[in-house]
């Protein structure tokens, strides 16, 4: 349907067309350019059925990205460019801001390293602010526990590894770096309340940290609560209320009830029966568990394989009722997945993605029915974040 190119001689007519625009356009389609440049904006608050797909772009880690998709329509809504060794974005509870811990080098992959928390306006996806932080944020296979907000959104906590271990505390109200909390031997960050979190230590104990208004920290070290030999737990815990659900490589659930100053493991249970374990069924993937407080339900990516496959993708999802600890549903995904996530509403969507395939699949979480697939979402999508 392409017309011949305008030759220079056509310039005149173009100029005329433009000059006469007001008049000549009456019966025509309206001019876009008359309205000047336009840039789309997003509804605030975001729909509960929107999902952020985070991408650490493994072959070109300097160019991390995040993509926003509408689960109800499959529409691609927007992009963030998020720098080197990107983990994931964090969404403020008031829906107005997106926090993104980012790392940059003055010469792309060399030179001076600068770590920042970039604040993006949730409605415009423009940079709304930038907070300088110590250039220490951990570079690892992305985990939700790389960075978290306290339950009151006052503090942003970022796990550091250089390889000394610590936690960077950012005051989101003052928009400034507050302090660094040394957590020798303990990794990652899991919030436990308005002003508290814990890290998990190498011996299976927890470092419980309570923060005051100034970001001051009171640290408590628990007894070992997790088995580190034998069948250790993964970092890929999910949370409902006061309970963090950790899962072991073999598929044993450790419900951890944790607060500012104490923590205890509730009775454990298995995702699998003895027979299923014998048959090699175990959870796997990068974001292998997802929860929704309705029910409440826990979803797990399952596959068959040895202990060395504990991070491998799976094609099956098993669904558990957390109140009865019973499996209530099983279904096969459209394709292999390394990550799943649920929307947080009463009629949740389930999202699945595979790090080496870039189609986002969207399911009715209640039935496992595939609703739609969104093609070409990124390069190496890792973990997903929902409002």
């Amino acid at each position, binding site marked *: 349907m392409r017309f*011949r190119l305008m030759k220079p001689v*056509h310039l005149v007519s173009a100029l005329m067309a433009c000059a*006469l625009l007001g008049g000549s356009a009456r019966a025509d389609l309206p001019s876009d350019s008359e309205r000047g440049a336009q840039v*789309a904006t997003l509804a605030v608050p975001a729909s509960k059925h929107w999902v952020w797909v985070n991408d650490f772009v493994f072959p070109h880690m300097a160019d991390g990205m995040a993509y926003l998709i509408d689960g109800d329509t499959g529409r691609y809504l927007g992009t963030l460019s998020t720098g080197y060794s990107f983990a994931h974005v964090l969404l403020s509870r008031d829906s107005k801001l997106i926090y993104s811990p980012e790392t940059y080098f003055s010469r792309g992959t060399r030179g001076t390293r600068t770590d920042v928390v970039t604040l993006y306006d949730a409605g415009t996806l423009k940079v709304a602010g930038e907070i300088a932080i110590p250039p220490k944020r951990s570079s690892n296979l992305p985990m939700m526990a790389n960075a978290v907000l306290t339950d009151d959104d006052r503090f942003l906590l970022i796990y550091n590894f250089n390889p000394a271990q610590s936690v960077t505390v950012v005051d989101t109200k003052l928009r400034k770096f507050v302090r660094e909390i040394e957590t020798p031997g303990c990794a990652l960050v899991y919030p436990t309340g308005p002003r508290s979190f814990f890290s998990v230590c190498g011996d299976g104990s927890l470092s419980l940290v309570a923060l005051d208004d100034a970001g001051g920290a009171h640290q408590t070290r628990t007894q070992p609560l997790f088995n580190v030999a034998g069948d250790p737990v993964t970092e890929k815990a999910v949370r409902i209320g006061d309970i963090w659900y950790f899962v072991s490589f073999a598929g044993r659930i450790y419900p951890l009830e944790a607060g500012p100053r104490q923590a205890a493991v509730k009775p454990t249970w298995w995702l699998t029966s003895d027979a299923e374990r014998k048959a090699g069924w175990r959870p796997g993937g990068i974001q292998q568990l997802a929860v929704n407080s309705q029910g409440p339900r826990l979803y797990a990516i399952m596959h068959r394989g040895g202990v060395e496959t504990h991070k491998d993708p799976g094609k099956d999802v098993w669904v558990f009722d957390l109140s009865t600890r019973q499996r209530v549903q099983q279904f096969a995904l459209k394709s292999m997945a390394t990550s799943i996530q649920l929307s947080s509403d009463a009629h949740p969507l389930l999202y699945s993605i595979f790090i080496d395939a870039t189609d986002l699949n969207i399911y009715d979480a209640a039935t496992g029915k595939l609703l739609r697939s969104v093609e070409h979402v990124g390069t190496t999508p890792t973990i997903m974040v929902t409002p």
Partner: protein
Amino acid sequence: MKWLDALSENSARALARRTSRRSVLAGLGTFLLGAAAVPLLPVARGADSKPAGDASGAAAAPGTASPKADPGDPSSCDYWRHCAVDGFLCGCCGGSQSVCPPGTDMSPVTWIGTCHNPSDGKDYVISYNDCCGKSACGRCFCNRNEGDTALFQPGQSNDYNWCSGNSKANIPYHCSTARIVGTAK
């Protein structure tokens, strides 16, 4: 480049084309350049961009005109306005055929084509303003090399990245729009 695979209509042949940047700018474009890149036409309005906040959320929805008057799928390479486009279609990237995706800036420098609207039978002057400031969108690549010529004639070469030359729309290219300037009489 996974996204390339699905974009290919006739694979191999299409591949070199896919690597091209920017589509054909008519003589008009040369004029813009001649004028030291100070755009003098409605397409120049890209320059005095309102703050993104001003753009309504609805702007993200394709086509404001009725589907009948503005037929076709703006996220398809076949959409009538795309007769001279070269790049990722903003309609697949969070924008539309006339609006940039959230958080990007519209380049004030643009190239122009003349496209035929099958519904009203009129020819329209279309400006393909780039949206800039984020890494490549990577979706819905659309390109044709008809009429394309060498870099010696920037106005008619699609190998340039037009996200250049102003502080807001810096070099990172994200996607391309296809905006109506007016009818070409």
